[in-house]
């Protein structure tokens, strides 16, 4: 890996993090995107996309909801894909590096978010001073810039200086290690879908979960087919429920 490639991979990682800061969570962090970019930089776009797609499935449910930062799938995906491409290996290696990195970086993000309450008090002072709009804006932007630089530099260091170390680890990995990691790779996507269920599922909605599962498991219908069927169903439910509501309303009006 050349220094330029390592630098660019670092930038991908930085970009994937500030996506959620200043680009309105536009999803540059998703492994399909970072995998594509890392693949382009390292000269194997196709493999980058394939690894990105596998990591994407693992992190399908990696959602950041509420004030706590979620898994740092941007940095994790970037480093995971880069290591796998550097060592000509597959998803097992990408996962073995990407998953721990995404967890470790989550801790770093938590740390930074804690430290950032300091500058907020400075902004309160600036407001009292008056006419400090430019400085206030800069405090806001500097917070983002620090995020970009810290993640980009860390990624650069890992993929550039960690190169030989990583290769040694990967080539000396015993077979049982591989089958073990294969098992982890199979189980982890279940976490993603469990997280989604946790987000969406209410007691009333359980029948639709069963329906979606059965349509795909027994009838082998595609995602699009299941989506079309359930949209139709949701539409029907909307009509039934809103007509029920108006019926109840007119009834109570008649009583009056």
């Amino acid at each position: 890996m050349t220094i330029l490639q390592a630098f660019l991979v670092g930038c991908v990682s930085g970009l994937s993090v500030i996506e959620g800061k200043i680009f309105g969570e536009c999803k540059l962090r998703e492994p399909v995107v970072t995998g594509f970019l890392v693949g382009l930089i390292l000269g194997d776009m196709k493999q980058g996309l394939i690894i990105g797609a596998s990591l994407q499935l693992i992190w399908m449910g990696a959602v950041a909801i509420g004030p706590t930062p979620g898994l740092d799938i941007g940095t994790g995906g970037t480093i995971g894909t880069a290591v796998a491409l550097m060592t000509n290996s597959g998803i097992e290696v990408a996962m073995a590096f990407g998953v721990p990195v995404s967890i470790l970086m989550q801790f770093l993000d938590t740390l930074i978010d804690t430290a950032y309450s300091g500058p907020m008090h400075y902004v309160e002072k600036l407001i009292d001073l008056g006419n400090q709009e430019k400085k206030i804006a800069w405090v806001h932007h500097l917070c983002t810039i620090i995020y970009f630089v810290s993640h980009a530099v860390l990624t650069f260091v890992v993929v550039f200086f960690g190169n030989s170390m990583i290769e040694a680890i990967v080539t000396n990995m015993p077979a049982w290690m591989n089958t073990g990691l294969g098992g982890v790779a199979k189980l982890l996507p279940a976490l993603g879908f469990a997280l989604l269920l946790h987000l969406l599922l209410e007691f009333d909605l359980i029948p639709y979960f069963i329906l979606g599962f059965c349509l795909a498991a027994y009838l082998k219908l595609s995602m699009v087919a299941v989506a079309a069927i359930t949209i139709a169903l949701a539409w029907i439910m909307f009509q039934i429920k809103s007509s029920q509501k108006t019926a109840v309303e007119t009834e109570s009006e008649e009583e009056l």
Partner: protein
Amino acid sequence: MSEIVNAKYGITKKDMRQIYWRSFTLLGSFNFETMEGLGFLYAIQPTLRKIYADDEDGYKAACHRHMAAFNMTVAPSPLVMGITLAMEQMAKENENFDVTSINAVKVSLMGPLSGIGDTFFWGIFRVIACALGVSFASYGNPLGPFVLLLAFNIPNFLTRYYGLKVGYSNGTTLLTSLQKSGAMQLFTYCAGIVGVAAVGCMVASWIGITSPLAFEISGNVIEVQSYLDEICPELLSLIATLIIYACLKKKIKITRIILAIIAVGFVLGVTGVIA
């Protein structure tokens, strides 16, 4: 020349565009104390300045007001910004206006709008966008990332644009009427139907945990997986998902769950129970 949106304060379409673009940086200075507070202030500050052009103290008070803790899903946040500015104008015009109601409205919107926003943007749009992206990228098609970004960002950009517009012009009346009629809840519920069914479908088609275990009993090879398939295809994937879901329900920390999955998955993988 920019079109005038509010003649009294000289607020133009250009100002609205500025809020729109600045709303993308909402999380830029996220912190655990004020969360998106500074991001919110940054987005509306130039317009606040115009509203309080002749009232320095009012302006400072308003700035402090919007530094207060604020946190919500980012895509619908311009709606709150629009409503907030409409209320700030009311506050400027009417001395008896209770300014604490501005933050009260912001806080009261955080919960429900985040709930809806999370369902749509994290639960539905992201899942659909990623699913489309994966379906291209998994065989190395470079369309994957572009399809993903487009599928997610078209609703993202549109929600912001119309949210700001509707929030500012229809102001406070909008959400109370929607909430009163109950249409918002019903709409979210029906969206949940599609979302939950999509998760069920993905559990069945995308996890694919199988067991390579096989026993030989008096010359007959018994493959565990074929028996499992008799009961229900993709049974192991379903069980794994439901166990993890149960852990989440019990409010076990995600990092712990991940560590447990890594440990369990590794052991099951090495021993050849799952593959």
